[in-house]
């Protein structure tokens, strides 16, 4: 996702919050007017409660508007976190309104109030429930599309309003059925539910603000993508944190220590491209490439005979009858194995056959005098490092030169086989 797309997404969220603000304000206006005209104190009290809905919608709207700002010198990671802060405000307001409902309902259990059967109140409550439900659907959908926690939280806030409005109906019904205390009990339940919702959202917001890693599956996904790239020996220290609807990530990548910088850079670019492709919400991505802490190298040298470390070196690649594979350990230990190059006997593509043999034996390094273009690419694709044998004829000298990092790297010759 490019920056423009992200800003568009945030813009969509901001527009949804804006629409919600307008609708909530209109709803509050209706309640005030109907309350004043009918003289219903319940409606006026409900209008006061709606103020908190306007407030949170406004907070989310402003928050998403602010998060669209481009990163600046002062805020190098951008302003996406403002969305998270708006989410926290929603959480606090929801929890506080839950406490309020709880206290009011307790009072009603202690002293059940007479419920007046006012058609105006009922009509307004019905409209309010319907509008709140539509708002819940709308914000929930846009919230999921834009991956915005604030909008998703706002949607839940609207759902609580649906419940509160439904409570007014229920109160009247049970009142006539002769259970005046039922309204209070339902109110207590809604209050507790609201508090739990608010606290849960608050916890999520605080976790994001603390840079917690809330989606561990992203880590395994990133690890999988990186290790599938050729030349990557391992990955570690994958860190993922959230900022508003987006993700910031960093990862350490291990590659062969003999690699050149431009090769390592190409690997890191390939990984970055693949991660951005498959995890769309990634915004800032920091890849640190480092040489792998491998403690053993398998070095291949073409040889003419099968006499172990005393074998005569071959100056051919594809035509060489044998390869000696030497495992060189960090602690100086060496072990070796001679493999026959069956490809030497065939007429064409001998070099390719030899290259495949070496890849099959998981060779890290090949020291040879010459190599053709096809085999060169086969070997490089499997991250085999190629070094020039030069005029060297003894295996021991080659190994010493490798340990001292004195070997020159080799590229393919135009006519070799």
């Amino acid at each position, binding site marked *: 996702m490019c920056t423009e797309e992200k800003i568009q997404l945030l813009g969509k969220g901001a527009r949804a919050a804006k629409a919600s603000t307008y609708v909530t304000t209109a709803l509050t206006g209706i309640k005030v007017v109907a309350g004043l005209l009918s003289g219903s104190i319940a409606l006026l009290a409900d209008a006061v409660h709606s103020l908190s809905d306007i407030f949170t919608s406004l907070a989310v709207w402003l928050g998403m508007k602010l998060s669209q700002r481009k990163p600046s*010198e*002062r*805020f*190098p*990671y951008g*302003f996406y*976190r*403002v969305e*998270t*802060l708006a989410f926290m405000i929603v959480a606090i307001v929801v929890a506080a309104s839950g406490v309020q409902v709880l206290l009011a309902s307790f009072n009603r259990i202690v002293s059940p109030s007479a419920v007046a059967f006012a058609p105006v109140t009922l009509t307004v409550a019905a409209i309010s429930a319907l509008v709140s439900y539509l708002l819940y659907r709308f914000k929930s959908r846009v919230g999921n599309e834009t991956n915005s926690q604030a909008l998703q939280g706002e949607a839940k806030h609207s759902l609580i309003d649906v419940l509160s409005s439904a409570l007014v109906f229920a109160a009247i019904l049970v009142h006539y059925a002769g259970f005046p205390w039922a309204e209070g009990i339902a109110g207590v339940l809604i209050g507790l539910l609201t508090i739990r919702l608010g606290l849960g959202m608050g916890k999520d917001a*605080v976790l994001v*603000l*603390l*840079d*917690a*890693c809330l989606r*561990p599956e992203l880590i395994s996904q990133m690890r999988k993508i990186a290790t599938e790239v050729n030349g990557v020996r391992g990955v570690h220290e994958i*860190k*993922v*944190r959230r*900022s508003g609807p987006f993700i910031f990530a*960093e990862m350490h990548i291990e*590659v*062969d*220590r*003999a*690699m*050149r*910088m*431009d*090769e*390592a*850079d190409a690997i*890191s670019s390939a990984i970055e491209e693949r991660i951005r492709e498959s995890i769309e919400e990634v915004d*800032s991505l*920091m*890849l*640190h*490439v*480092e*040489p792998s802490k491998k403690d053993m190298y398998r070095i291949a040298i073409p040889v003419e005979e099968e006499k172990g470390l005393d074998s005569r070196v071959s100056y051919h690649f594809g035509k060489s009858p044998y390869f000696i594979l030497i495992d060189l350990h960090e602690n100086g230990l060496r072990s070796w194995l001679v493999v026959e190059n069956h490809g030497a006997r065939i007429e064409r593509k001998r070099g390719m056959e030899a290259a495949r043999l070496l890849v099959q034996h998981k060779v890290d390094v090949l020291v040879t005098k010459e190599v053709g273009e096809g085999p060169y690419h086969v070997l490089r694709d499997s991250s085999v490092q190629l070094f020039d044998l030069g005029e060297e004829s003894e295996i021991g000298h080659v190994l010493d030169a490798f340990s001292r990092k004195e070997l020159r790297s080799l590229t393919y010759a135009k006519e070799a086989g």
Partner: protein
Amino acid sequence: MSASDAKRILLQKGITVSRRSTFVLVVLSIAKVIVGLLSGSIALLADAAHTIMDIAGSVIVWLGLRLSLRKPTDLFPYGFYKAESICALIVCIIMIFTGAEILRDSLERFYVPSVISFRPVVIAVAIGSGFVSYFLARYKERSGREISSQGLRIESRHSFADVLNSALVCGSVFFTYLGISWVEPLAAVIISAFIFWAALTFGKDSIFSLMDVSAQPAMRKAIEDTILGTPEVKGVHALKVRRSGPFIFVEAHVEVDGRTSLEKAHAIADEVEDRVQEKFKEVDSTTIHVGIHEKHS
């Protein structure tokens, strides 16, 4: 890692400061309750109730610093340093409520001047409480600066507001004695303005920290210079320096020659990290991406 140990020792110091501060405040409020009950002074009992808010602030900062000390976990790969910023933000919100309360009371007093009884006990306790708060404010400001803890510094302002409040109690007695009734509410308005100012300033800082604000431009420049001063480094871009609680996280793309071997490039990155962490003690983690320096014609 010795650098990280040094940070732990600093945080530990902050925890000690906030614990001592909490203890002193608890003793102070108990003293106020006892004297208030013995003398029957409602003003003192009300003041004791206010001190409980101070205790809450102190405990929250103590909790924030304690959380910051926790080692990074799988769930919190960047550690818990931001807990300190969140706690500082909570203290700021508490202070705004305190300020609003003082403002409301003092506005009422413009119309209905309070009748202050000239009681030596109340004045003695106010003076004593003022001195204690003053020393707490100094103590917290000094160590807050030392470990760059927003929480401790906002707590220091909180204590300073208490000093002003105590002075107000003594002053109001004096002015009421002289028969000038408007000085006390006016002073209260000024005190609440001070509280709002402190809470908003530090609240802004905490919110900015939660939003990954960059460190001061001067420090950013100094870090950039340090990176560029490392041998073999040809350039630096995408330098991001963010605050996390009392510490700083650095990310940078360092450019080297394309022909450099990876091993060498890694050694350069290590050198850059060492130099930055050596020079800037508050830097907690440095992530360097080594890239190829492209020549610009």
